Every structure is written in C-alpha cells, then in structure tokens.
C-alpha cells in the first residue's frame, strides 16, 4: 500500500531501473530525496550520475533538460514548487514546447517537468500555486495532474515514456492523504484520458487534482440526499479527453466543474466552452463552475475559503438541479 508521493517515487525508480537514458534532477533531489521526498533513496540506488542536485536556478533546470533531451536522454526535472516554475517559463514555452515543430521533427524534447502544485500544506506564499491553465494554453505541451496513487504511478510512467514534453503536476495536499495497492509492474496509463471515478445519472461533476477529494465527498453526501452524481477525474488536462465528458453529459444533462485554480480562463472555462460547442442541446441547466477566486492565493490562514469546499460544490449542484 503506497500513497501518492510514494507512487511518484516508485514510478521514477521503475523507469531509472529499466531505461538507462532516464535521469532525474532538480534542487535537493539527490541525497535529500526532494523536499517532499519524491526522490527519496533514488540517488543511493541509482547513483549520482543518474539522480543529482542542480545549482539553484529554475530557468537553468528547464533549459538543461531541453539540451539533454536533444541528445537522447529522458530527463525528469523537478521544480521544487509550481510557484518556482515561472523563471523557467521562457525555456518551457519558447523551447521545450517548440523544438519538434521548429526543426520539423529533427530535434525533440522527450522530457518531464515535475512540480508539486496547489495549497493546503501550511507553507508560505508561492508554494500553493494552481496555474495549470498557463501550460494548457501553450501549443506543444501536455499537462497531467494525477489525483490518486495508482494514477500518479501509471501517468508518470506514461509521461516519462512520452516522446514529447509533459508538465506533470502533483497535488501536494493529497501526497499523503491515503494509501492504496499499486502494483510496481511498470504498467503505464494512457495520457489524454479522463477517469470515471463514480457512475451516476443526475449530474456530472468534473474535476482534477486535489479537488477530487472534496468532489467525491460532495458526491457521497449528495448520494445520501438522493442525487446521483457521476464523478470524472480529468487527469490529463491537455490533451483533454472531451469525449468522456460529453458522454457523461449526454447521460446527465447537468454539469458542475470544480478546480482549485482561479476562475477566469481556468480549465473549467475551456471545458464549458467545449460543452457549449458540442453538448448544448443535451443540457437541462446552465453548467456551473466552482473554483478558486480571481485573487492571489491567500496565505494559509484563509486558504480553506479559497479552495472549493464540499459546501460550495453542493450549492452549485443544488442550483444546477434547481433545488431551492
């Protein structure tokens, strides 16, 4: 039985063991095993040549990975927190996402940029970011956010084996939330697929990342109240598996989208737009979204009022179901 962060560690170890082109690096990932322990013991097991610390510079981490990937390595680079990815944005957006296109397939970037994301860990500012939509907007990038140990393991394997750059964001709030059985069999999950976590017929709840926790809690409480919720974990926010979402909405005709990131131009907006384009005729009520506010993520004293709560999710469901 392992938790989400142990699943990340297990996937990294599996790939290091089975593919000698895989290298893991970042700040404090070596001897220290990462500030969250994602890379715990990996350096001792696979050596300093394959698992190593870098100087403290995020643009450098992003840029080095590109150069390494161009030479046939498969770099898995860790940014210590999502909020520290921003100095690397130029490298990620201007280069990692574009080399295949710029060189018409000659130079490619089979690499993974990993980072813990989201709030709920009582850490200072910049350690609680949910800006996944920034990356989803960029042509040439794939963006993955696992929400369970099994999905973290299978999706990280898929990300490392993917021939193109993947942004792999790990919700730190649920790193140690629970354990489950995850066979260390090297079996990857498919990127670009939603996971249906709960079947239902009254309303579709679409979410991803740490918010899956509150979404499932809301669904269970609503079930007690006689409202049958279908819960879908988007997991790969780019490419988005809209077919699965559309299938669910065809069944329920109602939809609430939940994420921790700010509202404007968040992933919920994109999903709503696609629902509008493709599922308008099937809708029985306007689609609602429950998201973080368009404010800076507050320091942790106020975090719980920012992160979508079970109460807010349930209110949106009542509204959509036209329950007063």
């Amino acid at each position, binding site marked *: 039985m392992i938790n989400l962060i142990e699943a990340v560690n297990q996937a990294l170890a599996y790939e290091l063991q089975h593919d000698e082109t895989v290298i893991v690096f970042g700040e404090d990932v070596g001897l220290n095993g990462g500030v969250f322990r994602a890379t715990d013991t990996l350096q001792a097991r696979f050596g300093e040549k394959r698992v190593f610390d870098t*100087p403290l510079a995020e643009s450098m981490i992003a840029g080095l990975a590109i150069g390494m990937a161009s*030479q046939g390595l498969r770099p898995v680079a860790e940014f210590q927190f999502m909020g520290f990815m921003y100095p690397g944005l*130029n490298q990620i957006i201007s280069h990692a996402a574009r080399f295949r296109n710029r060189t018409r397939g*000659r130079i490619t970037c089979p690499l993974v940029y990993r980072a813990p994301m989201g709030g709920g860990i009582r850490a200072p500012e910049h350690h609680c970011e949910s800006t996944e939509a920034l990356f989803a907007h960029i042509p040439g990038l794939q963006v993955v956010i696992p929400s369970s140990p099994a999905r973290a393991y299978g999706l990280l394997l898929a990300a490392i084996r993917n021939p193109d750059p993947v942004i792999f964001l790990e919700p730190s709030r649920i790193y140690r939330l629970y354990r489950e059985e995850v066979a260390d069999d090297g079996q990857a999950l498919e990127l670009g697929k939603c996971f249906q976590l709960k079947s239902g017929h009254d309303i579709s709840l679409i979410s991803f990342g740490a918010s899956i926790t509150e979404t499932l809690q809301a669904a269970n409480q609503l079930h007690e109240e006689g409202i049958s919720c279908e819960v879908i974990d988007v997991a790969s926010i780019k490419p988005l598996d809209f077919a699965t979402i559309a299938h669910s909405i065809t069944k329920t005709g109602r939809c609430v989208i939940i994420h921790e990131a700010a509202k404007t131009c968040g992933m919920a907006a994109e999903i709503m737009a696609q629902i509008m384009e493709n599922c308008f005729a099937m809708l029985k009520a306007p689609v609602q979204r429950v998201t973080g506010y368009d404010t800076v993520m507050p320091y942790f004293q106020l975090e719980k009022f920012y992160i979508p709560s079970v109460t807010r999710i349930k209110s949106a469901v009542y509204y959509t179901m036209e329950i007063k």
Partner: protein
Amino acid sequence: MIIKTQFQIPFYQYLNQDGELSSSAPELKDTDIIKYFRIMTLTNIFDKKAIALQRTGKMGTYAPINGQEAVGAAIGMTLDKDDVFVPYYRDYAALYQRKVRLADILTFWGGDETSMTYSFQAHDFPFCVPIASQCLHAAGIAQALKYKKTSNIALCTIGDGGTSEGDFYEALNVAGAWNLPIVFVILNNKWAISVPLEQQTHCETLAQKAIAAGFQGVQVDGNDVFALHHVLQEAISKARDNLGPTLIEAITYRLSDHTTADDASRYQPKNQTEEAKKFTPLERLKTYLLQENILTNNDINQITNDCTQEIEEQVNLYLGRKLPTIEQAFDFHFATLPDYLIEQRAEALEEFYRAND
C-alpha cells in the same frame, strides 16, 4: 586584509589592423588561410544578397553579419563535425561550414521552419531567437555528451547584449560547477540593437564574467582569424580533454543594422562606424594575403566570382523552393497528432486549399 584572489584576462591578437602578422602567431597553413578568406568572402557576398532579397520583397526580416564574418568562419574551421553547435541567429559563416545550405538560411528568413531540418548536420541546433536561452541548451547538451562518455563538446554563440540575461549567467555557473565540455563564444559587436556596450555592463571585459563561474575567460580580436583560430582550438581541445569550459569574448563591430527592420544611423555614431569600416576582418586578411604573396589580385577575383556563382545557385534554389502547406503547421507539434489538432488541421486545410485554388 589579504588579497583572496586575483584574475587576469588575456587578449589575443596576431594579425594587426594593418594586416601585419605578429612573429609569435601560431602556425596556420596557407591552405587554411585561403579557406578563411574564401568563407569570409562568401559570407560577405551572401549578406549583401540577403539584404537585397529582403529589400525587394523576396524575403522577410534578415539579421546581417557584415563585419563579423571572422568569428563564424573560425568556429566552422575549428569545431569537429560531431561536436554540437548551438548558434544564436547570425552565425552564417559557421553554419555554412557545418553543411547548412545557404538556401536554407534564406528559407529561415523567408518564413519557413523547413529550413531548420539541417539534414547534413542533424545534431546542430537551429537558430535561437530568445536571447541567451540557447546557452542553457548548450550546457544540457554538454552534460549529456559527458553522460554518454563521448569526447564531443558543445559550442554556443551569443551576442554582447545577451550577456545581461540570467540564462547566460546560469549557463556559465552550471558549466563551471559541473566542469562541462563546453565553449561559450560572445560576439561582442558593441551593440545590442541600439544599446551600446557601456550601457550593458560596467565590466571592463565580458570575458571576466567567466571568472565568477570559476573558469577562464579570454578576449580575442574578433576580426583576426589567426587569433580566433588559436583561441578556439585551445578552448575546444581543453573542453574535449575534460579540462573545463572557456568563455571567449570576440571583439568585433556590427557594421550593419541590427536587422533589416532597423536603422543603425539613428544611434551609431558615424565616426565610430567609419573607423570600424577600416578594420574589417576580410580587408585585413586580404591585405595580408597580398602582402605575403599568398594570393594575387587575380586569385582574389577568381574566389569572389566563384562565391558569387555559388550564392546565385543557392538564391535560385531559395526562390524556386516549394512553399510550405498548412499541414506542416500542425504535423510537427507532437510525435502523434492529438484529436484536437486533427480536427483543427482539417478546418485549416479546407481554408488553405480554398484560398490556394
């Protein structure tokens, strides 16, 4: 108080501004010197031709190289085929020697990514437009070459303005910290578009920026092929022998606009430009070749004619090229095209072929 550390920045020049070769100059074979002359002549004529193509609407914005031909020529002459060249965006003399077709360089400025396929030198990097970001790619490449236990190195070029960027410092720092097989070459042409070097840095030299990263920086006359050849050879073999990186500051002068979209007369002092024109690498080498009777005026005319003809062929190749079709804008984003791009591609195709009917 004690002096904790001190440093020195050597400056190399063997062929002075009057075309006289110092007696201490390292040996360079006549055939190599003639090669240098030919490459620089070709680059110079190519540059004029490219500007003409832009001015007559046959090409997009172009970044000229006039006056800086020697640095790229020396990189091409000294870098091994299997080393990885990571250029900025006006290294034509080097690219030419690394088997990139001149037609492909024109095609880049002609607005088509197909130009960056570099079929002959498949591991060299394409043009890098975001300033200094290529330095980190070169560092990553160097680390990978080391990881794979090859004896190859990475060489990257950058302008003087680029040395103000964080990526430049981050690349130097990691190159030093990891003792990477890498050579950084700054083409200090004194101008970052309109901003002169004095406003870019308070340092006496750009080469000394290597000192903070823990390795050697050297200055070289960037218009002197003898000095460039020597300094590059030393730096490359040092990197190859795992003896550490080198930062080379090649001092030259941008005798043209930054790009064809720029007008340098707005900011470059006329007397400075006029002065610099007297000391171009090409004229300097020509003086030397004639003085030493290595080439005659006839030989030089012959070389010029040959180069002109070669360029004409490449320009014709460029002008007669197949234009890209809209599929190409989609087909190289991912190894496998995702559904959303398949849909958008179909939509774009319809519009493209309707317009091209």
